[in-house]
């Protein structure tokens, strides 16, 4: 495929989610907790998804979770990712927090990834402005 490597898409950051992205640069994975009804919220919202309260606080996640589902992307990705093939996209369940997020599984052979496998967060610098939380298997 004669496609020029495109720069990676950077997250289009919502103003209220800025603390999440700032913390990621510092190596911390944050989620929100509603101070009124105790609901854990991810991805970051303007208001609690349960009670609409805007009294949300930022809490640091343990960064530990499991792979709910995954795929090894082997061909035909968005053009900015062609040079990364093969790579793993997964939905991670942060078990303690009870929330889910999309990420990549890194630091392993892509074909070793399995459903329900325990993983922990790592941070990958995309550029000076953006660091993406990713996950790696927790070795027994």
């Amino acid at each position, binding site marked *: 495929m004669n496609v020029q490597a495109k720069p990676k*898409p950077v997250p289009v950051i*919502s103003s209220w989610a800025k603390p999440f992205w700032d913390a990621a640069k510092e190596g911390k994975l944050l989620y929100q907790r509603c101070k009124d009804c105790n609901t854990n919220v991810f991805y970051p919202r303007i208001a609690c998804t349960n009670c609409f309260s805007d009294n949300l606080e930022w809490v640091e996640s343990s960064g530990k979770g499991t792979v709910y*589902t995954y*795929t*090894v992307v082997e061909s035909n990705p*968005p053009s900015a990712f062609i040079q990364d093939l093969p790579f793993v996209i997964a*939905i991670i369940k942060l078990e303690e927090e009870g929330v889910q997020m*999309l990420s990549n599984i890194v630091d392993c052979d892509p074909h070793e990834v399995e*459903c329900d496998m325990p993983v922990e967060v790592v941070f990958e610098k995309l550029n000076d402005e953006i660091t993406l939380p990713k996950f790696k298997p927790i070795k027994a």
Partner: protein
Amino acid sequence: MIGKEEEMSNLRGKVAIVGIGEIPTARYPETAAISYAIESAKMAIRDAGINKEEIDYVMPTASLYSPAFNTELVTCRVVEELGLKNVKKNCQVFAGGSSSSCGLEMAGALINSGAASTILFVHSDKLGTGVDLQAGIDLFAASGVSLEWEVPYGQHYSSIAALACTRYLYETGNTPEHLAAVCVSNRKWAELNPNAFFRKPLSIEEVMASKMLSTPLRAKMSNMLFDGGSAFIVTSAERARDITDRPVYLLGEGGTVTHFVYSQEPDVSRFGWAKAGKMAFEEAGLSPKDVDIAEIYDSYPIFQLIGFEELGFCERGQGGEIFMRGDTWPGGKIPTTTNGGMLSQGHTGAGGAVALMVETCRQLMGKAGERQVPGARFAVETATGGTYMDAQVTILGTEIP
């Protein structure tokens, strides 16, 4: 909870589809997208056998390939091109892949309220020749996929489908061959469909030998984008009976919205089909065993398999075997996705499910030619949009049970 009067569309038997039109799904590099809309709409009006001036409301759904063309649809080009004189409103109804079901329900509600009498719903898009392959992948990777939470990780439609496949296979113990069986079943129908793009016989082995895209999803388990156009005409049940001997009545509508960001879907191996299906079947007063045809939205085989099972056509995890042994094929016990689906007819954007709606009507009207399901009276049709953000279920029939 489910089946309460306030959850139903209250349109059971009140409105009907009386005309359908569709151009073959294909590549038309030489012709403009507006012509697909005009041709399909003309066919639908002629099929209904009505005077075009009866149409008082036009619903063009969205075209994705070009914002400029979509603006033309919004700004009444279809009305002017068709020379329609009595149109009160031209208003776009768009819910991605769910546009057909959402459009039919909205059209039905407008007609039932008296705000409209005869509505033309029309789709056209040029995703086959209006954009190149990589541009298409890039367009869809940023179309309904969260720009903050998913696009930066390389999420795109193949990976979205693959994530559902992985969890479904893990939970049910099925194999990728079961997914391939859905593609084969759809192809059996497409072989008999002159409007389908892929019409050569297909085997499970061929699907399994095709290029791996995102595990376990292979190239021949993926839809391809084409140019296409389709249209249908909705009117009151009363008027429909004047026009035709075989009105296709709306009997039940069910729907549920489950997510915007794909990773927020609580169950990527089920989605909302069970709830939406129950609503629609209860409104219709029918059950899956009463329907003659299951027109289940595909785009990828996993979504067709999940929809088929969750609607109650079989136990969870058994669908793959049913597709494999031929129950869903022409001549089978439960004919399924009889136009070949987006996997074989071709994907035209919002038109994928419009084609399925048109096919449902075509079968019920007895106009499906070589692939006609004999004596079909009741059918279920499903649709879903975005990253499988919702589950929409429509029950149609030639009589009101």
